[in-house]
């Protein structure tokens, strides 16, 4: 089965500014993919090229089997894609229901106005003027307008920015529901919890190139490497006494003490932990403050997008 979105070698410059230098990724049908990256990484430009708002300088792009740069396919593509963007707005003097009904009239086979009003959580606000809505309510209206055409592919640009925690949970539920019903979703977010909660795969951009891609749980190899085991060094022991650093310099690649805390970074956490606890029990030590943690998505994100960090092609997992 072909992909809903296929991008490779995408390039776009604005004068001297190379917004997108080499971006390639795919989004399968029915998948949720999140584009992550700092401001200026090229997320918005990439999305806007796919949406047909901008032309590309080089590379290939295919959305639902159409070339978004081709004028002749623009209308068909707009029939079948929905947008929820940061910088779009609607007429302030129409009511919520009128705004949704107006957009519905533009599509060949729209969803029901009442149904979409309910999906977006706007029931009860139908007769309110758009200008009197709160910021969060306006975002939900944007969402309704993205859904009204019953799209096969939905773009969500930072969909929950400005939502309170409960509204954010509701929006996540809605997005999962849409995916369960077969919709393909490409979203951008700065919220790592959101990427972790929603995305089947994430694509991390930095400086206009893809620096990592994969499942959120495995991004940058964080499922395999660098599990951090930290605890307080038992009294009378030094780091040299520990079995992990003593027995296997390979698996325990760093042990440093600060306030008596030591951190063991290991690629084989099961074995390392077993050796450590076995050692402690036999010696009658207590490993105070023992925690085992993997680097969070945010840790990986920050490391991979650090200013000046060169793109690491070996980390790319397509």
């Amino acid at each position, binding site marked *: 089965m072909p992909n809903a979105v296929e991008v490779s070698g995408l390039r776009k410059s604005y004068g001297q500014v190379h917004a997108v230098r080499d971006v390639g990724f795919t989004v399968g049908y029915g998948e949720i993919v999140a584009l992550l990256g700092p401001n200026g990484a090229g997320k918005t430009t990439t999305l806007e090229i796919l949406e047909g*708002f901008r032309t590309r300088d080089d590379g290939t792009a295919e959305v639902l089997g159409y070339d978004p740069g081709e004028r002749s396919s623009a209308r068909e593509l707009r029939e079948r894609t929905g947008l929820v963007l940061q910088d779009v707005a609607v007429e302030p003097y*129409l009511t919520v229901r009128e705004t949704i009904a*107006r957009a519905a009239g533009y599509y060949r086979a729209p969803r029901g106005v009442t149904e979409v009003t309910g*999906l977006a959580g706007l029931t009860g606000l139908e007769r309110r003027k758009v200008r009197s809505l709160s910021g969060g309510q306006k975002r939900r209206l944007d969402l309704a307008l993205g859904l009204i055409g019953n799209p096969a592919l939905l773009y969500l640009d930072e969909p929950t920015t400005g939502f309170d925690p409960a509204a954010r949970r509701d929006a996540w*539920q809605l997005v999962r529901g849409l995916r369960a019903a077969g919709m393909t979703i490409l979203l951008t977010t700065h919220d790592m919890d959101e990427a972790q909660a929603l995305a089947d795969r994430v694509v991390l951009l930095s400086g206009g190139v893809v620096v990592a891609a994969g499942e959120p749980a495995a991004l940058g190899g964080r499922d395999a490497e660098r599990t951090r085991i930290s605890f307080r060094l038992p009294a009378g022991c030094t780091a040299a006494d520990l079995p992990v650093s003593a027995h296997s310099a390979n698996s325990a690649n760093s042990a440093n003490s600060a306030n008596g805390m030591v951190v063991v970074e290991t690629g084989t956490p099961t074995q390392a932990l077993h050796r450590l606890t076995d050692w402690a029990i036999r010696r009658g030590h207590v490993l105070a403050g023992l925690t085992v943690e993997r680097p969070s998505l945010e840790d990986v994100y920050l490391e991979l997008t650090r200013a000046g960090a060169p793109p690491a092609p070996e980390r790319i997992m397509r």
Partner: protein
Amino acid sequence: MTTAVAAPRRAGRPAGPPAGSRSNLRLLAHQVRYEQLSFWRNPQSAVFTFIFPVVFVVIMGALFGGIGKSSYFGGLSALQYYVPTIAALSVLGSCYGQLAVALAARRQAGILKRVRATPLPAWAYFAGLLAHCVLVSVIDIALIVVVGRLYGVPFPSHWLAIMLTLVLGAASFCALGVAVASVISNAEAAPAVAQLVLFPLMFISGTYLPIHSALLNGVSGWLPVRPFNEALTGPFAQHAGADWRDLAVLAAWGAVGAVVAVRRFRWDPRPE
């Protein structure tokens, strides 16, 4: 919010109704309807569009109501002169001025981008705006004629010529309005730029006072406002038919505006 979500349309070629002329017409009617709704809901635009020209005729009537036919007004009474020129001014205001400002503001706010994200074709969006402008102009002219009647200006008799001139003028000034909105990048500057072009043009075209300079009249005869004034004044006051030369100049300006608009119009608030 609920999570019960119906399945989206399947991938592959959709089986919707073919886009025929009837569905195009329905789309246009839909667009005009919602343009009207947004316009009438906005008290500011409605008041400016209708109150201003009427107040202008009332003031002119109070100032010059007593002046009968004179050579200063080209052989017309003062109000016979001002009713068609103020009618032309109201069409200019709503088709050129307000349209340019409204489009620049809609672009800046992201409203145009939202429209562009839907399958609504560009022609339908602009045809909806044009239909709106013609409708507003018709109402304006009717109001002005009625107020003029109170000052003794007879109802015009060549309605067909007036309608032809009105539709052509509205279309041309809409095209120029869209063209100006296309070359202005910033919505705050739009009213100033639109007025900067319009005000001197209206002045030398005799909108405010009759111009008796052959040079000015020669120049303004090739610019869009005087031909429109004259094309309306003929069937309004002198009971002549359509003035083809004036209409041709007007149409040529409309074509220039349309070319600029088509080449330069942007939906996106941020430039490429």
